[in-house]
């Protein structure tokens, strides 16, 4: 089973590159969103899944990427590539500045400290005149969904390849060691702070590029949508639903949840969000180790697996 995962993933990725050739416009737009969300979940996976540090501040990097691109293109009329680069630089600086003090905190305290970052950036950018305060920026319009689709797909492939490298490298082993026991990892010579900060920076790069692509596609940036705390919650949920600390779990998890949400929204618009919440609740009860663990069992999977999950975790 394990041997076929990588070739299958490559075949699927190549197939997906041809989707714009035959799919409808709405389908492509759905996929652009799904691909960008999957990238966010996959980037979150680096520190959250492998390192075990739950960050609620990743949406800040998304916002910085969005605004880097927005300011460069709307205010200074620079090309898209330069905007993306500026966004990435901003996000990397942000990750280093924020990461160094906050990553000294352990476990839940780190998660709590990151909760405030988004609100702080929202307030700052709402008062920043270069970012046109809370009115927002309008980017030059480019109607080329195929390009945005291929860009998003390329970014997701790149991000997944990076995570694949992390999962097999000495660096990734260090992160996993930190997740399992940070003190023991330190004793074995893992520089925990360095590992955690580089993981955050790595995540910030992909998150910022995703933000930049979305900004150019959507052609509008404002503080409320750029620094959206629910976006951060969504990336955590998608990653955890799929399987944190695995290579393909977050991608599959985001695709499944994006599709579920889209179908629910189309069928029963009023109760879609409610049912989405129910899916999360049931998923945590019946498959606490994520979708990757369920699928990874292959034929050995039976209803006993779900019962065992409950008996293991209930009081």
């Amino acid at each position: 089973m394990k041997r076929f995962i990588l070739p299958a993933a490559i075949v699927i990725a190549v197939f997906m590159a041809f989707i714009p050739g035959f799919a409808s416009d709405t389908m492509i737009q759905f996929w652009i969103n799904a691909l960008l969300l999957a990238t966010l979940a996959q980037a979150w996976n680096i520190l959250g899944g492998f390192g075990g540090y739950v960050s609620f501040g990743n949406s800040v990097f998304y916002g910085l990427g969005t605004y880097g691109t927005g300011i460069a293109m709307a205010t200074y009329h620079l090309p898209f590539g330069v905007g993306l680069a500026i966004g990435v630089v901003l996000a990397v600086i942000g990750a280093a500045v924020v990461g160094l003090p906050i990553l000294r905190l352990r476990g839940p305290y780190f998660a709590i400290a990151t909760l405030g970052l988004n609100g702080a950036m929202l307030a700052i950018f709402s008062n920043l005149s270069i970012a046109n305060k809370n009115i927002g920026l309008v980017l030059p319009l480019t109607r080329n969904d195929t390009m945005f689709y291929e860009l998003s797909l390329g970014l997701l492939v790149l991000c997944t390849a990076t995570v694949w490298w992390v999962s097999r490298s000495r660096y990734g082993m260090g992160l996993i060691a930190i997740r399992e026991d940070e003190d023991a990892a330190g004793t074995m010579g893992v520089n925990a702070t360095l590992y955690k900060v580089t993981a955050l920076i790595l995540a910030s790069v992909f998150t910022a590029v995703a933000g930049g692509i979305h900004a150019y596609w959507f052609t509008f940036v404002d503080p409320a949508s750029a620094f959206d705390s629910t976006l951060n919650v969504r990336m955590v949920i998608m990653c955890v639903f799929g399987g944190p600390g695995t290579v393909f779990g977050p991608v599959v998890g985001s695709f499944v949840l994006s599709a579920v949400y889209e179908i629910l929204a189309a069928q029963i618009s009023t109760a879609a969000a409610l049912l989405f919440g129910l899916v999360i609740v049931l998923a945590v009860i019946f498959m606490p180790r994520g979708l990757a663990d369920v699928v990874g069992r292959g034929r050995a999977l039976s209803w006993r697996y779900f019962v065992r999950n409950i008996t293991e975790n209930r009081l």
Partner: protein
Amino acid sequence: MVLAQILLNGVLLGGLYGLMALGMALVWGVLNIVNLSHGALIMLGGYVTYYLFTLAGIDPFVALPIAMVIMFCFGFALQWGVLNLIVRSKMLNTLLITFGLQVVLTFTAQLLFTADFRTINPTYAGNNFPVGGLTVSVVRLAAFLVAIALASILWFVLNRLPLGRAIRATAQNLTAARLYGVNPRVLYAVTFGIGTALAGAAGGLYGMISNLTPYIGASLTAKSFVIAIIGGLSNPFYVIFGGIFVGIAESLTALYIGPTYTDVISFGLLVVVLVVRPSRAVRAA
């Protein structure tokens, strides 16, 4: 004079903030669940009080204990039927499931109560009286006193009653408490029920001071969270003090820096507390 008035408002509002955080701190300290649906439970308590007032015509301060009983039953059922199933799982999973519950509660409320703004508006809602040149709002003062009273009752229950002893013992060592005859399933459900009842009371008071919508949950969770950390999880009165501290800080920020920065300042305080004294938020009840 303006400063004194601002400080007074901050203290009165802070008492309510403290009450909001009380239930979250209790559940966090005893069950080790960071309940992300806490704000949604506050919202629900607000609506229960609202409907007791508008449909049954009960005075909101009389409706408050009734709402607390209803919310206790709801919280008990939630812990017994759902959260007890995953309570030994990883912290990430408890965060995730309570987030899911928050989504479910918010959008159920939207279906049942619509997204309209609601305010619990008894005839004396606008009344106030002067004290030494300052204006004191009757409802805000009452809310503050209710918060102090509930914190005192919680302190008494935790420190003087057998139930409280069982709750504190469970927080310290679940296995040992079990050996002494504590039934953890019931005790967890009761504790979560108490936390939910406190959230319900906070919601009723919040509805008299501010507006209720189905969507207030997330921001109230965040606020409760900050206060629970600043106040610590060990003593109900510290949580109330934490609330007053945040209330004053927010009022001063709104006065001197600008109202858009009020949320930033409470989180700024939180980060300072966490970085300077991480041991402040030790786990005990």
